[in-house]
């Protein structure tokens, strides 16, 4: 269990670094790697939350009223409500992170499955 917490914290740290330094959502594919140790369900949920929250935390450096105003301006141009404009990118980061976590978990489980099969073969 404690190992899993370490993996989760590592994923969170990597996601925050990605959001503030690398800045592009697709890099969360990397921060999702440590989540491979969780079950598919929890890896996906954690991935979604970590990706979403890391990018939404970027807004903390700006005044909220300014974020809202920019959301309204961009929303009026492309015809979406301002909250959608504010949330859409963190949401995408969350989705990328969630499916990346699912991907890594599946690969991890597959490789474990292979290992187990080999073990069974050797034992038999």
């Amino acid at each position, binding site marked *: 269990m404690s190992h899993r917490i370490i993996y989760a914290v590592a994923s969170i740290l990597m996601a925050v670094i990605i*959001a*503030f330094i690398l*800045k*592009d*959502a*697709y890099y969360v*594919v990397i921060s999702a790697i440590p989540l491979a140790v969780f079950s*598919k369900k929890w890896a996906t949920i954690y991935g979604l939350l970590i990706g979403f929250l890391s*990018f*939404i935390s*970027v*807004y903390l*450096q*700006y*005044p909220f*009223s*300014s*974020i809202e*105003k*920019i959301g*309204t*301006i*961009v929303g*009026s*141009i492309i015809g979406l409500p301002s909250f959608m*404009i*504010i949330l*859409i*990118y*963190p949401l*995408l*980061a969350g*989705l*990328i992170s969630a*499916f*990346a976590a*699912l*991907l890594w978990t*599946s*690969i991890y*489980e*597959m490789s474990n*499955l292979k290992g187990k099969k080999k073990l069974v073969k050797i034992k038999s």
Partner: protein
Amino acid sequence: MNKKYGTILIVISFVLVGTFSYVSNSLSIVNPSTGVFQSAQGGNFTSGNFVVPGLQYPVNLTIDSSGMAHIDARNNHDLFYAQGYYSACQRLFQMELQATVAAGNLSNFIGKSGLQSDYTMRLVGLSRDAYRTKSYLKSKDPQFYNYIKWYSEGVDAYINNTKSVSTHLGFHLLGIKPFKWTVYDSLVWEEYMSWSLATGSTNVLQSDLFVNALGFANYSQIWPYYPYYTENVTMIPGSGTVNGFNLTDQGISPSYFWSQDWFKEWATGISGALLRNTTSLIKDACQNITDPYNLPGSHNTGSPIGSNSWIIASSHSSDGVPMLANDPHLPLLAPSLWIEFQLADPHLNVTGWGLAGLPGVLIGHTKSTSFGLTTPEGNSANDYLESLSGNSYLYNGHYIRMSVCNYTQSGISYSIYSTNNGPLIARNGNMGISMNWNARNPSTDLISEIMLDMSSNYSQMLDALQYWGPAPPQNFALVSLHHSGYITAGGYPLINETLPNGKSVKVVGSVSLLNGSTSQYGENGYVPFHYLPQAVNPVRGYMFAPNQPTVGKNYPYPFVGSYWSTGGRAEIIDHYLQNHTKMSIQNMMELQSNVTDYWATQFNPLLLMAISGMSNMNLSEREAFKLLSDWNYSFYETMKNPTVYQYVTAALYRITFDRVYQEKKIYNYTPCVYINTAIYLARNDPQSSWFNDNFSSTVREAFVMAVSFMDSRLGNQSNWDWGHIHKLEIASLTGISDLGIGPMPIWGGRHTVSVGSVPRLLEYPLPCVSIGSSLRTIARPGTGTFYGVFPGGPSENVLSYWFKNQLPFWLNHKYYPMQGLPTEVKITYEP
């Protein structure tokens, strides 16, 4: 886990990760780290030391509580460099968008929808003229060229600071990166501003359309050379004599001269029959030189740009020293066209407003001088009818090949042809119209501007203005410690004319197309500087220049092509200054905030007289009549009287002048008939066919129509407030409404000194006020007293307090002292 199921899951996850990554990349504009939200950090000032590569010494910059930047440098290089850097810091997107529009490259920013604007800009030739000016300045005036160069290098130093640039919202919204700023970009924007203030070309086309549709008799009645009632309110007092020279001295009687039909073949070289065949060609030309992007907006038939200025001589001033007031009426934009500075170094100390993108201060003051400007409305561009054959034009009996510039933009190729007179702005078979705008010659306006910024007495200001021009001629109001006066500086092209009585005279401009196939009507020099309209220390104690006729009819170089404003603001200013023989700063402010319509004081009694004869008025009509009767002719937001006046006059125009314009198919091309014309006709020819043969009954019909309109569209009287129908919108250059300011209720009317012009239309809602006092300044160098305000702030960032920090004062006709305000921010730019 089943291996097959696991593989499918991996594939699906992989595809979804790829898809969402692709989508996130496409939506990078809303990325909180790299996208549009970075702008939330921009537009605010932080004290401290900042490294600005390229400076020679540290430069101190303080921002006072009004938002004005005070730049203190050790030499000219660092001063203009820092001005460029700071301007870019506040206005980079605006500057680049403006230069892009002016250069005819808008389609690079916004795609094919910018092509029409690009075509117009390239047709007018702003880019060509800017290159010509650049070469000229570089070779002839390297010192002044360097000032512009240093400014440009400062802008570019800021552009290289990518972190700061990323806070400019506009670049994110258009998905573009800033381009390298050069001297050319400053000059092409200067050309655009000149073009927006150029008069003549469009007016000539409009005059010809009117005459072709309605004949000269109607033209001279509706559009006299000097608008009705304006002959006694000229900028230069008197009959028109300048430095001892006038028309009479040339053996020409002004009354004879001004009674001529200047559309005749002797004046233009074009027969009436030929002129009548040009209507569709003229309409094409009008359309081609109207910029659809319409930044400053003068070259269309909408609200004309005007301005106010007046000077008070020592004898008329409460403190015994001269004063100046100026408020140029330009498009009110967010951010403003202006940016406010104090620029100081050992050679220069000037405070005021410069145009964003250009070095120096254009309207402002030094310690001992002050200068402001308004537009004088005489022809600086003339149009010529060309006889064409293939790609050649006829000139003095020979066909000469036109020069051609080929362009390809957004996959569309086009060519622009030019004759000796200038670019061909329309062509129909073997006929074409070319435009000769005086900006074809290199502009030395920036030399003049910076010399004004360095001036310390009246004669130095006059010396500086010898360099102003050739485009656009401007009425310069000048005040020093002891002197005050006006000069209309710039290049007015002269045309040699031979009058029907055989006398020759050089005139400014034309009311009609001129024959381009002969040198006879070609431009022949400019009005000599010594004889430009000018006067100093007026005996009566004041002068004023709100776009009314510049000089009287005896002026030695008559302004045949003159399209003066109605003179309504001039009348208000004249009456006020006559009645206040000891003007104080407070009086100057009071006059600048005046919202009384002089023409309403003249026209409303005529309307009331006509309406009073009505019987069986309903309740609304009785109330409307009472509102007109009880009116003091002010235009405040909370008053109902101006609303009734607006709609009654609009209804009257609809069933008289506008109906004729519509029938003759010139409504969208020709300016609205002046109210002074309507007043003149109502007084002197009430049975005029323009009024359907009976002024009184037509007014009554208009009154009923207007009240019925207000009842049905506005509802009960609680909605009749002027501010309910009359609103101000300070639009963004991008056209995105959320980046602008308003709409909001606003005072003022078409002819009030504090202007709030809207078209005279029977419509609700009315178009918003979009042109007005782009800044207000009052200066009294003799006592070191300077005030100013403008409807904006230094920043272009809509999220910043500094985006519109001066707007509340502007709306309430309040002012900031231009010195001694507390410092908000202290910055040092270090090399």
